[in-house]
């Protein structure tokens, strides 16, 4: 008699909802015992129709709308939009404005990378590192508030320039802040590269080769940690970067440890950039006039967000409203890499692999359902996180 073996599939479904979450997403990991064999994503739970919304507002209103695409990297969205509109209108912001745009962009990168460091550490159960990095992040949040008046959504850009300037006392505060953060960051580098328990969770985990990274379209620090030499600030300098060039930072290893090292090295580079810009700020005006009606045309505006390349495609039609604004955020590119990377890894590694791409995804208490041959069992993201930590104890 023939016996037929039907392999049972276990599907662990994560998400989508959590009230504290910026970007809810739903994932399903199919597991064979402990090992993940397939992963899928379902996005769009916070799709707010902003691209459509843009078409019904004028360019000035859109600038404020686009700054609100993301709460972490708000400045780069406004920057990409403003640069695109300026290209279409055929105007250029003055050098001082361009330098201040890059200054705010680097401060934003510092806050975003420190935030990520804390989130990624928390997913691995390293809560002391999480608390310290977030405490230190307050330094840069205070500096952003000092120069713009806001902790998030700094609203530094206007079409044609910026609306904030840097005075001497702000310059001194920025120097002091960078000195403090640099010292702290040396300590973090030591922790993520030398601490045995930390390395046990990151070294050789979530490996992605350079070829895989390129093929999967990974961007930003995720790609650079696999040795991919892509950084829009270097490849196609914009705003203040032609005048203040940035150093490209890559790591060859392609594992989670490399993703930590790349981001921490980028922190050092950002501290250097902030000092460089405030010490050599060009004199002059802060903005130029941009016409209300933008001539017909199409443009592509690319900037390096903390998570990687951010692309805006814009089409104008001669009126004061754009015909189309297409936004491609870096996280969208990196989902593809995480879904492929997940395969072959342990379920216990999922929280850190997911956090490793810094996917605008900092939720902790999501609902997790374990499907087991018709029976389902509910877990929260917290349960999965604890499961991962316990697994490695």
């Amino acid at each position: 008699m023939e016996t037929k073996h039907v392999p049972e599939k276990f599907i662990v479904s994560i998400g989508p909802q959590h009230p504290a979450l910026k970007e809810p997403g739903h994932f399903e990991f199919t597991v064979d015992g402990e090992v993940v064999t397939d992963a899928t994503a379902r996005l769009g739970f916070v799709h707010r129709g902003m691209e459509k919304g843009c078409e019904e507002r004028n360019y000035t209103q859109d600038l404020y709308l686009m700054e609100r695409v993301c709460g972490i990297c708000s400045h780069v969205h406004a920057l990409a939009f403003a640069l695109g509109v300026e290209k279409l209108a055929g105007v250029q912001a003055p050098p001082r404005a361009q330098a201040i745009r890059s200054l705010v962009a680097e401060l934003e990168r510092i806050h975003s990378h420190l935030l990520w460091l804390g989130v990624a550490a928390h997913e691995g159960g390293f809560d002391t590192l999480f608390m310290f990095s977030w405490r230190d992040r307050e330094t840069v949040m205070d500096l952003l508030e000092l120069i713009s008046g806001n902790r998030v959504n700094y609203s530094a850009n206007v079409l044609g320039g910026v609306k904030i300037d840097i005075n001497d006392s702000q310059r001194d505060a920025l120097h002091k802040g960078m000195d403090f953060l640099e010292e702290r960051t040396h300590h973090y580098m030591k922790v993520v590269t030398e601490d045995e328990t930390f390395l046990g969770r990151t070294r050789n985990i979530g490996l992605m080769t350079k070829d895989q990274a390129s093929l999967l379209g990974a961007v930003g620090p995720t790609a650079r940690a696999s040795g991919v030499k892509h950084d829009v600030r270097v490849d196609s300098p914009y705003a203040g970067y032609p005048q203040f060039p940035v150093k490209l930072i890559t790591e060859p290893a392609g594992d989670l440890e490399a993703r930590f090292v790349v981001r921490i090295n980028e922190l050092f580079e950002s501290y250097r950039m902030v000092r460089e810009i405030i010490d050599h700020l060009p004199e002059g005006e802060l903005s130029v006039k941009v016409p209300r009606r933008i001539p017909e045309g199409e443009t592509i505006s690319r900037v390096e967000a903390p998570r990687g390349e951010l692309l805006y495609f814009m089409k104008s039609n001669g009126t004061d409203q754009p015909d189309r604004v297409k936004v491609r955020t870096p996280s969208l590119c990196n989902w593809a890499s995480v879904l492929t990377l997940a395969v072959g890894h342990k379920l216990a590694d999922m929280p850190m692999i997911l956090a490793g791409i810094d996917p605008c995804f900092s939720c902790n208490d999501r609902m997790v359902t374990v499907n087991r041959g018709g029976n389902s069992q509910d877990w929260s993201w917290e349960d999965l996180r604890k499961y991962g930590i316990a697994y490695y104890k």
Partner: protein
Amino acid sequence: MVIKKKLQTPEEMLQAGKELLQPWTLSENTPESDRLDVVIRAADIKACVKALIEAKWGYLSAITALDCPEYAVVEGSSQKVVVADKGSVEVLYHFCSGAAIVTLRVMLPYAAATMDSICEIIPSATLYEREAMELLGVEFIGTPSMERLLLPDDWPANVYPLRKAFTGLEKTNKVEEK
């Protein structure tokens, strides 16, 4: 031909891209100094993408879908209105290499908004394809999953929110209330 990227300026990269795509080019345009737009037939998309990828000409940065509806002028005024069900969707594949951007442009009429998926060549393109599929109604044959990615599960079929004719669910096709 494999392109040695480091040695080349954006102009040289665009020239190399132009030569690679020559066999399938219907028309081309350089809208900005670092950009090249190449109009191709929908049927040639896989060949073009393969040519770029095999030559290591950059990476796919995004797929944009653009709605190009037909407009009619309202009699007695200068106001323009969208003519429903007439028009086309343009699909733009943006490839970047350094500062250079090559855009492959494909025009598809609403009545035949179908083209091949490029996921065989670039697996990660599926997220961009599914986005264009749901928001602008372009069907990509062979994309690994046709399930909803962005829109709610109860969103009515054949209603594409990023088309110009769409002005809100209530006016076009209200979701049935349970």
